[in-house]
């Protein structure tokens, strides 16, 4: 062994990504990582959700084999109710609980501290600000996806449908995965609009059916606006196909 050579591998310390943030900033940080208390709440919350979906909505999952067992990946689906995120995330493997982040609207879920605490400690959601979205936020989400690696639940329509019809997908999904091998899992959730439309105060006991499609990858799509639009269009077409909807006429 020569001088200066280390006899052992150096230890790799990786402090929490959100180290040094005050509590309220931590809740809405895109770098938030949960500790022991967060993990306990996630396990508790998602166990309750699984029971609720099974008993109250008799949730059926078609194509379960398409759900990945390892991060990174992004689950994408149509968006018609607050039940959607529960139905998409609940069937995912329990070991991913701390690293599966629903992407939620910052203006709805992260403005007030008590709601933000619920979004962070129960749902494990990360915020995306719809009105003044910073491109750096998308870049941060894209980085974290493959660095950590972690997984997201995302609704590219950007909001719940008010009419029951599926809206066009926004291209933000493309900014997360264009020219990477991260799989996008297209899903279609049936029955959620009937069970809990945006106008309703409480969910009704209607059956939910989640159809999970085979993963899509976009290594050849350019990481620019055109590439993102292309990704969004392909994902949208696949979600429509799963839902038995006709292709969009453009």
């Amino acid at each position, binding site marked *: 062994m020569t001088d200066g050579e280390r006899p052992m591998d150096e230890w790799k*310390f990786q402090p929490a990504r959100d180290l040094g943030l005050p509590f309220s900033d931590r809740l809405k940080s895109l770098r938030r990582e949960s500790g022991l208390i967060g993990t306990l709440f996630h396990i508790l919350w998602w166990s309750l959700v699984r029971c609720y979906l099974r008993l109250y909505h008799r949730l059926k999952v078609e194509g379960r084999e398409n759900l990945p067992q390892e991060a990174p990946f992004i689950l994408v689906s149509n968006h018609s109710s607050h039940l959607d995120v529960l139905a998409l995330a609940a069937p995912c493997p329990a070991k991913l609980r701390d690293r599966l982040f629903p992407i939620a609207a910052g203006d709805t879920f992260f403005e007030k501290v008590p709601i933000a605490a619920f979004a962070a400690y129960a749902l494990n959601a990360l915020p995306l600000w719809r009105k003044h979205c910073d491109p750096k936020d998308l870049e941060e989400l894209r980085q974290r996806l493959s660095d950590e690696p972690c997984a997201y639940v995302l609704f590219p329509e950007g909001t719940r449908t008010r009419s029951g019809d599926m809206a066009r997908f926004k291209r933000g999904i493309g900014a997360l995965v264009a020219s990477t091998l991260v799989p996008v899992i297209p899903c279609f959730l049936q029955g959620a609009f009937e069970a809990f439309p945006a106008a309703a105060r409480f969910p009704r006991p209607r059956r939910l059916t989640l159809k999970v499609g085979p993963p899509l990858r976009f290594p050849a799509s350019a990481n620019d606006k055109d590439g993102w639009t292309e990704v969004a269009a392909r994902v949208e077409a696949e979600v429509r196909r799963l839902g038995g909807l006709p292709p969009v006429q453009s």
Partner: protein
Amino acid sequence: MIRERLLGWSHAFDHPVSRWISIGVAAALVVALLVIALLSATGRIRDPFRKELWKRTLAWGVMAPLLIGPVLLGAAWTILSITILSLACYREFARASGLFREKLVSAVVVLGVLAVQFAALDHWYGFFVALFPLTVILIAATSILPDSPKGYLQRVALGVLAFMLFGSSLGHVSYMANDWNYRPIILMLLLGVQLNDVFAFISGKTFGRRKIVPHTSPNKTVAGHLGALLLTTPLVATIAHFIFPGTPLDRPLWLILLGVIVSLSGQLGDLMLSSIKRDIGIKDMGVLIPGHGGVLDRINSVLLAAPAVFHYIGFFVGFGLDQPTRIFTGP
């Protein structure tokens, strides 16, 4: 008798040393605030130094009652507050070192911390002592479960060190509360190590030239450490003389040695945290206390001092030998 020790707040000032220390700390805070107010009003100090000074002193104004108050109120409150303190320290350590991602190890360390505090509350020395090897066994064993040998040694070592510092070590402060006369002893320990830091800061600023461990902590000087040793030792020795009169510990040499132990272990605890932060590559452990950093940045000097002082005093006097043991688990 048990009830009186655990919850008997009316005994808060039974011992003159508890009285002096409480009055002294309160007076020092008031004087410090008045001096800063005077200096600000006459324009002798300016921003940002003025703001920093206010922030730090006011933080002391909150911290001192939080540390001293539970000790005065009763042994149960003392142990409860040390438990919260231990968990807060562990949280900062785990998040800074990355150990918090190892949920199983983390859960075992937290369990160990709670068990040690329970053993202290129960006055069960056998369990208190047994918990060190038992928790280490549990950490080494649960670390096998994820079946990922890469990083095994790192997570076990971090878990063991964390348990030793925040479970076992701080647990010694709680165990001291089993002595009928625990109030002056714990207050002496807390006052000793905190003033030790202040003395080191002042003598370092005044006389400091030669750096002591520049790679670990560039602002610490030989003069600072010597100054702290020279000032803390007689202070602690004097207080201890009034706490332990007529005991085998009450000899000048033994009292001075106690002062040296408090001062040295306090300074080493401080440097230990500096080393940890340097190794990880961060500046402060947290943001909880304005102007001070995290809880650990303030409590670091107690970490090594607590067991050293406990066993030194234990050698001569012992803790709570006349008190009933195994209060909750006993037959």
